[in-house]
């Protein structure tokens, strides 16, 4: 079986301009969303605070939970529907100035008062103090930056400087667009999201490596051709692999997204967006940058 017939010659680079407009538009949407939402929506990992994940034995609604927990006189409690069944909720409490205060216990007590001891089950409590939150935030940003730089350096070292540069810019592009998706969907930024972003970086660079590897090979083989032709041909030759691998990876990510449970939802979403964008960017961001470089500094 073959999805991509041998000898396929799509002139990918013809659409580079449209791709630039497309990518820029997406990133601009991200900037607008960033401004509109007033920054990234940090989860407790990064913002500090407490979430209590509660599952009720019977479906209930957020309003009645809100009514019950408001008895605790803790300010700024939000209650949020979680999962599909209508019996799971996230109760989010603001951060405290000192360490982690005993908020979760007070929530437990108020729920026991309002609904009865047996009616609910506290499934998860996550509390992060302000100092730890700041620390995790710093580490998260550092990890993403570090990973991007490292990938670029590795490719510059293994291939040529321009490939490294192209890969690094493609990665920044991927991270920005994935972040846009998170901003638009109003998904919280937490540690698992950062882990997913790092995975996207690791896998997205995969595609770039495969294309670059072929470009390098074809540059040796087709000395007379222009880089434009070589890159186009390399993308076409690796297209079948790109489609198949992206396909199998998307299969498992979809399995995680639909079956992996609520805890992995954001994680799978980031991967879903990131992997798709990553494949697109290795064709339309990384390679054109190599070309652009060529125009500035011709090979011969």
């Amino acid at each position: 079986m073959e999805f991509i017939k041998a000898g396929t010659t799509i002139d990918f680079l013809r659409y580079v301009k449209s791709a630039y407009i497309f990518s820029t538009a997406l990133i601009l949407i991200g900037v607008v969303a960033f401004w509109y939402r007033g920054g990234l929506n940090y989860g407790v990992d990064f913002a500090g605070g407490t979430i209590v994940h509660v599952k009720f034995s019977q479906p209930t609604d957020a309003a009645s939970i809100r009514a019950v927990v408001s008895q605790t006189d803790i300010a700024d409690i939000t209650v949020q529907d979680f999962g599909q069944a209508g019996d799971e909720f996230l109760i989010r409490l603001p951060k405290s100035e000192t360490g982690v205060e005993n908020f979760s216990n007070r929530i437990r007590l108020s729920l026991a008062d309002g609904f009865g001891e047996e009616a609910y089950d506290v499934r998860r409590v996550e509390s992060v103090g302000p100092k730890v939150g700041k620390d995790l935030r710093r580490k998260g940003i550092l990890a993403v930056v570090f990973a991007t730089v490292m990938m670029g350096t590795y490719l510059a070292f293994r291939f040529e400087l321009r490939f490294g540069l192209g890969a690094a810019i493609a990665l920044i592009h991927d991270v920005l667009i994935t972040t846009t998706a998170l901003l638009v969907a109003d998904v919280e930024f937490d540690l698992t999201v950062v882990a997913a972003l790092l995975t996207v970086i690791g896998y997205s660079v995969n595609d770039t490596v495969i294309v670059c590897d072929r470009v390098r090979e074809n540059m040796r083989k087709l000395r007379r051709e222009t880089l434009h032709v070589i890159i186009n041909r390399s993308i076409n030759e690796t297209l079948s692999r790109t489609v198949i691998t992206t396909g199998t990876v998307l299969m498992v990510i979809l399995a995680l997204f639909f079956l992996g449970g609520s805890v992995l939802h954001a994680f799978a979403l980031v991967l879903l967006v990131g992997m798709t964008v990553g494949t697109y960017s290795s064709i339309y961001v990384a390679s054109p940058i190599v070309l652009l470089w060529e125009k500035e500094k011709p090979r011969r």
Partner: protein
Amino acid sequence: MPQGLRYRILLILGLALWGGIYLTPSFTAALPGWWPSFLPSHQIRLGLDLRGGTYLLLTVDLEKAVENSLDRYAEELRRALREADVSSVSIERRGKTLFISTGSAADRETTQDILAEQFTILEPRVGAGSGGDIVVDLDRRQIDALEQYAVDQSLETIRNRIDQFGVAEPVIQRQGERDILVQLPGIQDPERAKALIGKTALLEFKLVAEEGSNVETETLNGQTLEPLSGEMTKTTYTIEKPTLMTGDGISDARVRPSVDVEGPYVELILSDRGSQIFEELTGDNVGRRLAIVLDNTVYSAPVIRERIGGGRASIHGTFDIKEARDLAIILRAGALPAPVTIAEERTVGPSLGRDSIDQGAMSFMIGGAAVIIFMVIYYNLAGVLADLALLLNILFLLAALAAFDATLTLPGIAGIVLTIGMAVDANVLITERIREEVRMGKGVRAAINSGYERALPAIFDSNITTFLSGLIMFQFGSGPIKGFAVTLCIGIISTVFTTVFCTRVVYDYFLFRRRIVTLSV
């Protein structure tokens, strides 16, 4: 069969056997009776997010630790001065500095002598600053040492408390400068554990102030027992500041059953030194009320009727049996040298852990099945080969987790699922290359050879980059994320091994047997 090929086959079979042995404990309910004891018997370790439990990050209040020890030095200095019959000296601590005011030049000289002889670690400066004519600081090294000691001591005390509380396989370790990481797997009542771990548990015996006494006093919250109804009411006490005895004097603490209307109480068994002090302090203060103060709350304040020898004391209060038991544990394990605050808490209930395992397993099965079926449909026999490599890959990956005693977390399961999706990439690259070579008219053997050869650099580079991002995650991530990084990295190693090395052996075997006439790719 060529030697090299035979060794390669043996290596793969040997590793598969090794993997099978390591995974048997994890996938059988009970090991069979004949399972030899030298074989591994532990299961894959599950993270707190899968088995349920509590993760705590505690921060030791180092400022307070230093202040506490300065207070102790001040107390010792006062005693030394009393023994030297110097009475006009007052000592005050402000922050991390002691200010000593002396009444006369002679007193100042004596104080300086005592400081020089007995308190060599303190650094007195004469005539400096306001508020006292001797100013005492701790030097930086001394403060560092005190802080280190405070963290070590807190760690030890917390370990003691948890050991006595009874948690299976707890993890208690130091993290960074001032933090202590505690993991309590499978704990049922996290709130109780938090209370037990976080309490400073500074026990002090002080006198309740009497009217007309000229000792400095403080007001503390407490409770009193109504003798008739047996109810506790909240009150405040005016207590004399000096501490007559602390929890240091305790050698053991036990829960005693209730008497009369009260609940159970905690009996303290004092050490030899503690008994001696207690006997003296009760003897000196017959008729007065002795307040038993725990973390600045007065638990009870009985009247001292007589000199109490025999080294026993007791704490009464409105405890239920659990609270009394926890209090006894805390008192036995001793006080924390400084207060700790909980900087981070993550608790997962057992039901969520179970659901996570089920959901993780489900996405693993469905995702894996989809990939396996797809590969056969798309690549025919080469797809079957890739699938075999994939199954071997999963076996090695799980076995490596068990063998290295790595922790499997929910993101870790996601890492395994992702590895399945990504692992076939190498086989896709190789098979696509072989297809290309065949199209160019190469023979079977040549097509396979150059297919592997040409695909290798790309496989190598793409896996190294993913491995690098895994390492970064391991470096920066915490808990569950580390688990993800571990499965990702192990997955990459076993992927390269199975997809490149193992599948090649199969091709070589059939080539050797001359079974392959046409390629089914």
